[in-house]
């Protein structure tokens, strides 16, 4: 854990080099396929530099010397970044993403790059072009996705924290599946510069950690305005650790009727309602709530995200970098073959969907309509937040499924995101944290949604719940 490790480093009971070496050994063993790349040389150099700073009394902060991992759609200068795609199998970025640079500036040791569904498109990490990641709680099951590699790396105890990205639930759902805290910040709080785009108006980078406090520490390191991202916000930075202590007394917590869906696993529902009760016992009030446009969120998401993806992925054409088909005779052939060979089937499916929805004659019926519904979904939340401070629900309606399940049915797969998507459409902050364990020993996650730029209330609620539940979840 970051805070605990920070304390150990401060007390000199360990060194960054020692911790990093241990982490590297574990990462190299990597029985869960969490990692796509390990930057041993970079990590060791960063660890030594951190230890030297500490010896000089020039430690940079709570992340200094702490090994972390980055989802492999976050660029790392000089370290191959693939987005989980054959298209970028050999792509070495010439620059760091802003979040990478900020973690480095905070002294964090970047151990390696974690597996993901190709370009972030999926909920299982099975859509990686390279290998499927396994859930450390049950290696026959998915860790969720698309940030499944980051989830597995933290849950397996290889690193204390990792960054994921969340376009429709890709931080929160794998966090729920692996017993972690996962935070998708408010759209605009964290820079997207240097993050390989899936759906630009929905993508957001966030921390995946063992504790709420650790999530706060990582958020503090990466958040804030970035001139390189015109959608990043200059919203005031907060000292998150301060806000953790304020408690939930008099906080109004809303349970949206529409989020307790048919077909939801009863164990999950029980566990989530128990978490709400727990908060109530801490002084919060529980409010019944309706978000009437929730039923349109899935369709809205699966128009907007593929539209943006079909556009964002146009640059992978085999001309300047990335996969290029061999023995090409003509330009059209270069495009067709490079893209056919370089992209996996889920990516192609979404490119096709988006291309179709943006075509002349269909734009109004699909993209424009979806944007209108998106506004209605956003308004649902605005109205809800006049009466509540936090919205509480399950993160996923189901427990982690078997790795070979649901592979042939994309629609069933899309349904798994139904509780996490609306948060991205509305640009709100959302957090998933463990609230229990199923009878089968699998983690259950509860999702907290907050007002725009009100991560403070989310973190504070999560901290209170975490302390009260006092779960001991360890990988078996």
């Amino acid at each position, binding site marked *: 854990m970051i805070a605990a490790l920070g304390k150990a480093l401060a007390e000199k009971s360990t060194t960054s080099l020692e911790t990093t070496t241990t982490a590297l050994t574990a990462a190299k063993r990597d029985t869960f396929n969490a990692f796509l790349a390990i930057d041993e040389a970079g990590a060791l150099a960063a660890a030594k530099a951190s230890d030297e700073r500490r010896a000089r009394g020039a430690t940079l902060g709570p992340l200094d010397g702490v090994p972390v991992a980055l989802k492999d759609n976050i660029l790392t200068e000089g370290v191959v970044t693939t987005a989980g795609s054959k298209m970028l199998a050999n792509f070495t*970025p010439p*620059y760091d993403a802003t979040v990478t640079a900020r973690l480095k500036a905070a002294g964090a040791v970047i151990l390696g790059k974690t597996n993901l569904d190709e370009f972030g498109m999926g909920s299982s990490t099975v859509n990686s072009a390279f290998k499927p990641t396994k859930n450390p709680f049950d290696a026959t099951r998915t860790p969720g996705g698309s940030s499944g590699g980051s989830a597995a790396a933290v849950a397996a105890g290889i690193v204390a924290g990792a960054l994921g990205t969340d376009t429709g639930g890709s931080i929160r759902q794998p966090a729920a599946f692996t017993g972690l805290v996962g935070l998708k910040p408010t759209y605009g709080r964290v820079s997207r510069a240097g993050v390989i785009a899936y759906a*630009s108006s929905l993508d957001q980078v966030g921390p995946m950690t063992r504790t709420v406090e650790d999530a706060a520490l990582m958020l503090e390191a990466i958040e804030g305005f970035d001139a390189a991202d015109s959608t990043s916000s200059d919203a005031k930075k907060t000292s998150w650790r301060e806000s953790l202590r304020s408690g939930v007394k008099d906080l109004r917590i809303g349970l949206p009727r529409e989020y307790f869906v048919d077909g939801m696993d009863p164990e999950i529902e029980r566990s989530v309602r128990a978490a709400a009760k727990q908060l109530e016992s801490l002084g919060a009030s529980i409010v019944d709530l309706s978000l009437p446009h929730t039923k349109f969120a899935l369709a809205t998401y699966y128009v907007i995200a593929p*539209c943006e993806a079909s556009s964002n992925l146009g640059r992978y*054409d085999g001309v300047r970098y990335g996969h290029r088909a061999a023995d090409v005779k003509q330009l059209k052939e270069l495009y067709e073959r490079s893209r056919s060979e370089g992209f996996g089937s889920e990516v192609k499916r979404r490119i096709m969907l988006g291309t179709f929805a943006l*075509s002349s004659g269909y734009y109004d019926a699909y993209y424009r309509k979806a944007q209108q519904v998106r506004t209605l979904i956003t308004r649902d939340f605005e109205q809800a937040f006049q009466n509540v401070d936090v919205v509480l629900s399950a993160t996923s309606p189901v427990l982690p499924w078997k790795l070979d399940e649901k592979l042939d049915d994309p629609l069933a797969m899309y349904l798994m995101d139904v509780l996490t998507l609306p948060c991205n459409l509305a640009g709100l902050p959302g957090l998933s944290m463990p609230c229990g364990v199923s009878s089968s020993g699998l983690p259950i996650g509860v999702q907290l949604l907050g007002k725009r730029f009100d991560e403070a209330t989310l973190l504070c609620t999560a901290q209170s719940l975490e302390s009260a539940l006092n779960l001991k979840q360890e990988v078996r």
Partner: protein
Amino acid sequence: MPRSDFQVVIGLEVHAQLLTTSKLFSGASTSFGGAPNAHTSIVCLGLPGVLPVLNQQAVELAIRAGLALECTVAERSEWSRKHYFYPDLPKGYQITQYEFPVCLGGRVTFDGADGEKSVRLTRIHMEEDAGKLVHEGSVSLVDLNRAGTPLLEIVSEPDLRSADDAVEYLKSLRDILVWIGVNDGNLEEGSFRCDANVSVMRHGSNTFGTRCELKNLNSFRFIKQAIEIEATRQVEIIESGGKVDQETRLFDPQRAETRSMRSKEDAHDYRYFPDPDLPPLLLSKDRIEGERAKQPELPRARRRRYVEALGLPAYDAGVLTADRAMSEFFERCLAEVGDAKQVSNWFMGELSRLLNESKSTISQVKFTPAQFGAVLKAVKDSVVSGPGAKELFADLFATGKEPSVIIQEKGLAQVNDDGPLLEAIAAAMAESPKNVESYRGGNTKIVGYFVGQVMKKVGGKGNPKRINELLVEKLKG
């Protein structure tokens, strides 16, 4: 030209490169030339993860152009992505403005064959340029130096009715854009490009014919030629009972023809949608009005003022306003001297000649308006003679030294004292009693001979007017 019962209808789309130092969405340089791909950045290369950041200088220039062209500058406009695959387009889309452009309406006024005309503008929007392909034998190479360069697309209504008017419209538009510092007006380097939408209809009809879009028009001469050739082609099709197809046609100046590039059916589906990486462009009233307050007097208005208020000939007014720097320098010299006609004469005569001879431009002149004023004052006060003034001005132009210093160094001061003049007159009369007699006998023209003699004796520096006066007095006896 089309047969006489047909009328050509023309609308023009101009792409004008904005005079910014960096690209529309990245810090890479916009300078022309350079080694291929030297002026690129991770943003113009379309690497994974890069995001566009709007160049505010480009926005300012767009507002300035919109105001100069009498458009409504939109307080809210939007960026869109226009998609197509081509190796000169690194992202697979061009960032442009589609549904909500930065300027709406507006007009351009020019002098057509039958007097002043005004063409309405539909819209002006900003967009990024693509790169280019260089074909070498069987390989094609990509140069992205130009990719991301900021452009203004200025779209006119189909208000033009002749190829000559189209050219005059373009010249007037270019004059304005160059004048306000938005564009360098260079057609050869492609920083001012034009596509023409051309159709024909019978005189008296108010239904436009099917239009064709002409491309590859990179000089005013080609624009005129292409429009005329295309109009003739369309008239011939209609006359022979055919139908004009809507298509994009390429002008081939070598063969003096237009030929089909792509038909309407092959037109791309660009799949425009608002760019999620860029928030809408919001321009406050204050910002727009701030730019308006900085608007300079435009060339046509200034030309008119020179004629109407300063009394200059139209030709002079045209020459003096052909170039903003020339006009501004004229204004400053005028402020020193006050006599527009006199200043204009010097600009049109001596200054133009010296600039031509030295192959230099007005912005390179070494003298100040105050020094120019000093030369004219020396003439007015008879400090120097007319020819002396030209010599003085030429030296001032060459060196930029103070006129008083030049007068001293070159000994250009006129002798205005009667003493030395009278001595010289007496000597000249004494040397030529015959001519004195001749004058007194009525041959008053002979005074010219004496002026010459006297001037020679004072080394050419006598004030000719005074010499004349004194001579007449003495010769009369």
